[in-house]
Every structure is written in structure tokens, then in C-alpha cells.
């Protein structure tokens, strides 16, 4: 691929995560540092080895002060979860150019303790009572329902599968199994979306350590290779619920990522899908070509995404819907643990997982393929 020479050039060699919940005794910086300490231990390195830092949702200067990281490379990113994917891509590129050799990527969020509200603030549509990312996704999903005949019950199968996974994950905030009926009977937050279509705002931190494939070979953990990634933005409907479910942008990503990673869709053993709201899972699956556009609802029925049942176990940690809304960061950490093997409870392990794919359907459409062998 003349346009792509980054296949398997960088690896994730350490991951760390805090508990998820309500921790008013600390803050986002404290949670980020705690996660980073765990990632550093996990990677078998020291803080002195870190010569690059990429942060998400953290005040960069205060974080660098408190974590005592004085490096030649520091990049803060904005609070949106889409920056989980972007941060990883930036790290690969910084490693490939030699800009840094060992990069700490850190996410910290104290949104729950800080009583962060998604909705109700100022905004162009506030005079009409329209607010919150959830309402925007509800508006998009209604279009999907009208155009393709998708139903709320289709979404229930996504929520049920992820909850089943969460019951196998001690770190997950939600541990009680749910049924399709439970989903359907949960209260509306914004019709057509029910409470169980929404992610879980919590405090927590996640960190990854990334380095070059060369260096990764001799390190403590089995390296997880970034085999390929692709990204296409479409902000043309930034002020509106997108009327196209970001499908064209996702299709562009789909047309590039498999060639770049040197694998096909059939090689993918499981998925990590950015699930801020359950409809996003459908948009991502359709956009990435796992099913035809409009067939996402039928695709996820009968446990397609469920461990032990479906072809593509998805969000085996419980995801944002049932583990915690760590904005993509904990999904990548879960993918790394799955690919190492033996680092999650046996009943949560994707058998013989070799390649996992991260999918992100937002105004930044993106995907990443991770593998445990180059």
C-alpha cells in the first residue's frame, strides 16, 4: 500500500485502569495518574522511560506537574471520546517518526463526582427544549426506524449482550443481568431511546503505554500490534443530528482499514464498538460493512454480538452501556487484555483471539485493528 506504511509498526505494551464509580475523594488528574502508574507497572517500565505524553480530558499542564512528567512531547486532546482513537493514531505517528520512543496515553474523568451534565446547558436548540447527545442520537435513530424498519427492540439485543459481558467483568459498574423485556420496560429518557440505551457516566481513569514494535519485542507483556487504522471526518452536520448516520464516512474507513492492516473482515475475532448510545453500534456495524445498511437491527438479534453465541463478540467488558463510559479508552484496554490471553476471566475470553477491531461512528469516523502477532 503506497499510502500506508504503518502496519504493525507500533504496539500497546501496557494498560492500566482504575475502578469505575464515584470517587469524590480524588479528581480526574488523580485518577489519570493512578491508571498510568498501573500501566507503567503492567509494561514493566519506569516513568523515566516515558518521553511522550498524550492526554484526553485532562488539564495537560496540571497533569504533567502532578505526574511529574517532563518530556519533549506532550499533546492534550479535547474531551470528546472520539479522541480515544485519534490519540492512538497520533501515538503511532509520533513513534514512526521517532518523535518519541515510549508514549504514555492517559484518560481521566471525574464527571460523575463533578456532576457533569450532558444536556440542559446553553445551545442553539435550547429554546425548543432540544439538548443532550442522547437526544441527538434518538433523533438519528428515529430516522433509521422510519427508513429501514429498525425497532427499539433491536437495540435491546445490544444492551442485553453487553450486560451479559459485564456480569463476567468485576470492574463493570452494572452486574445484574437484563432481558429484552427489561430494556423495553426501562423508562424513556428521550423516546425512542430508553434508559438502557444510554452509557454510564462515572469517574475513572485509563492509560496505555505505546512503543515501537522493535522495542516491544523484549518487553514484559506480549505486544499488541496496531496493524492498521483509518479515519474520515464529517463535521458538515455538526449542529444537527446527522441524517446519514455517518455512513459515507464509515464506508470510506471500511474501504481502507482492512488493506492497511493486511487482514479481511473474516480474520476479525471480536469487536470493540464505541457505544455512547446503543444506536451507534448499529451505525458502526453498518458503516463498516458487517451487514448491509438498514440491516443492523436484524444483524444484532439472537446474540450476534454476544460471547459464546455470536460470530463477533463485541464489547466483552460490558462497554459504555454496562462497564462504564470511559469514552473508548477502556474498550481499547479490554481489547489489549483479550489479545494477550489469560488476562480476563476464562468465561469472558474470546477464544483464541488474534485480531480485534475498534469501531467509532461519530463526526470522526474511525477504526483500528489490533493483533497479537505481526
Amino acid at each position, binding site marked *: 500500500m503506497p499510502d500506508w506504511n504503518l502496519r504493525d509498526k507500533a504496539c500497546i505494551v501496557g494498560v492500566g485502569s482504575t475502578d469505575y464509580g464515584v470517587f469524590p475523594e480524588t479528581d480526574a488528574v488523580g485518577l489519570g495518574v493512578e491508571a498510568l502508574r498501573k500501566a507503567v507497572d503492567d509494561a514493566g517500565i519506569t516513568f523515566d522511560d516515558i518521553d511522550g505524553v498524550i492526554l484526553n480530558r485532562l488539564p495537560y499542564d496540571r497533569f504533567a506537574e502532578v505526574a511529574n512528567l517532563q518530556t519533549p512531547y506532550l499533546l492534550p486532546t479535547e474531551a470528546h471520546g472520539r479522541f480515544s482513537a485519534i490519540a492512538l493514531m497520533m501515538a503511532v505517528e509520533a513513534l514512526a517518526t521517532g518523535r518519541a520512543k515510549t508514549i504514555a496515553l492517559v484518560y481521566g474523568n471525574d464527571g460523575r463526582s463533578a456532576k457533569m451534565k450532558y444536556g440542559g446547558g446553553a445551545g442553539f436548540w435550547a*429554546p*425548543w427544549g432540544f439538548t443532550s447527545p442522547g*437526544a441527538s442520537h434518538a*433523533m438519528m435513530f428515529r430516522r433509521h426506524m422510519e427508513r429501514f424498519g429498525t425497532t427499539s427492540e433491536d437495540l435491546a439485543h445490544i444492551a442485553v449482550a453487553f450486560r451479559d459481558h459485564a456480569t463476567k467483568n468485576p470492574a463493570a459498574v452494572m452486574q445484574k443481568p437484563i432481558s429484552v423485556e427489561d430494556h423495553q420496560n426501562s423508562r*424513556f429518557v428521550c*423516546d425512542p431511546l430508553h434508559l438502557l440505551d444510554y452509557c454510564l457516566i462515572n469517574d475513572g481513569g485509563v492509560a496505555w503505554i505505546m512503543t515501537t514494535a522493535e522495542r516491544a519485542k523484549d518487553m514484559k507483556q506480549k505486544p499488541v500490534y496496531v496493524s492498521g487504522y483509518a479515519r474520515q471526518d464529517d463535521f458538515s452536520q455538526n449542529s444537527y443530528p446527522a441524517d446519514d448516520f455517518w455512513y459515507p464516512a464509515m464506508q470510506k474507513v471500511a474501504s481502507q482499514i482492512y488493506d492497511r492492516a493486511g487482514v479481511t473482515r473474516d480474520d476479525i475475532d471480536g469487536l470493540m464498538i464505541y457505544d455512547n448510545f446503543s444506536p451507534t453500534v448499529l451505525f458502526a456495524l453498518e458503516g463498516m460493512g458487517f451487514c448491509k445498511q438498514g440491516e443492523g437491527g436484524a444483524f444484532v438479534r439472537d446474540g450476534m454480538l454476544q460471547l459464546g453465541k455470536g460470530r463477533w463478540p463485541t464489547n466483552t467488558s460490558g462497554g459504555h452501556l454496562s462497564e462504564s463510559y470511559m469514552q473508548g479508552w477502556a474498550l481499547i484496554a479490554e481489547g489489549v487484555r483479550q489479545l494477550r490471553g489469560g488476562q480476563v476471566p476464562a468465561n469472558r475470553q474470546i477464544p483464541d483471539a488474534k485480531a480485534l477491531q475498534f469501531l467509532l461512528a461519530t463526526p470522526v469516523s474511525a477504526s483500528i485493528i489490533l493483533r497479537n502477532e505481526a
Partner: protein
Amino acid sequence: MTYTKPLPEEDKWSGPFFEAARDNRLVAQRCSATGRFFFPPAPVSPYTRDKNWSWDQLSGKGKIASYVVMYQKYFAGFGDEVPYPVIEVELDEGVRLLSNIVDLGDQELKVGMPVEVVFHKATDEFTIPLFRPAA
């Protein structure tokens, strides 16, 4: 009666939109080079990235492209109205607006329903464009 719903946060770009609403006119910016409308109000046309645009009147007619029903109390002023619908209107000129429906009567809210603008005087300063089923 005091109006308790959120009022528009008028800025230098959206000001003329709300000024026109006060005169019961629905307007949007129109790109001079392409003739295409754009919204929400912006400093330049996204089609040409320049300032060659003008405010132009919209027909106020369109159809419901999507809708939701808000159950969560996000705004005090809407608290008594939950659950309340918010509609996404696609105007004949291609501009999309999020708004509320009035005078629905016993009709069922439906995607595809033809609607037309009505103007609701919220305060002496602000008039809010809303929509009703088209005659």
C-alpha cells in the same frame, strides 16, 4: 405570565434570525455564489468560505424529517411539559430546523407530516418560530 423556557442566546451571527422572527419572518443565510442556504448562522458560507451571503426569506413550509419525545427534565421551563416532542423540520429550501409542534389536535405526530411555521411571542424581545400541521 413569566416566560421560563430558555431564551435564544443571540450572537452577532444569529441576531438577524431572531430579529426577523420578531417580525414574523423566517430567514436564513444564503450563499451568493451557489444560491444554497446554510444554517445555523455563520460568519462565512461553508460552500465558498467567504462573506458573500445575504439573509433571505424562507417559505416556512416543510415536512417532519424526524422527531423525539423528551422525557428528561433538562430545562426548568420545560419541566411541566415533559414528555414533549421536538421535531426536526426539513424546509422546502433544504434548511433543517429543530423545533416544537403546536396545534397538533388529535393528529398523530409522524415523519413526513407537512408543517408550516408559526411565530410564538415569548417575550417582548424574543419570538420563537414553531411549527403546526400544514393546512
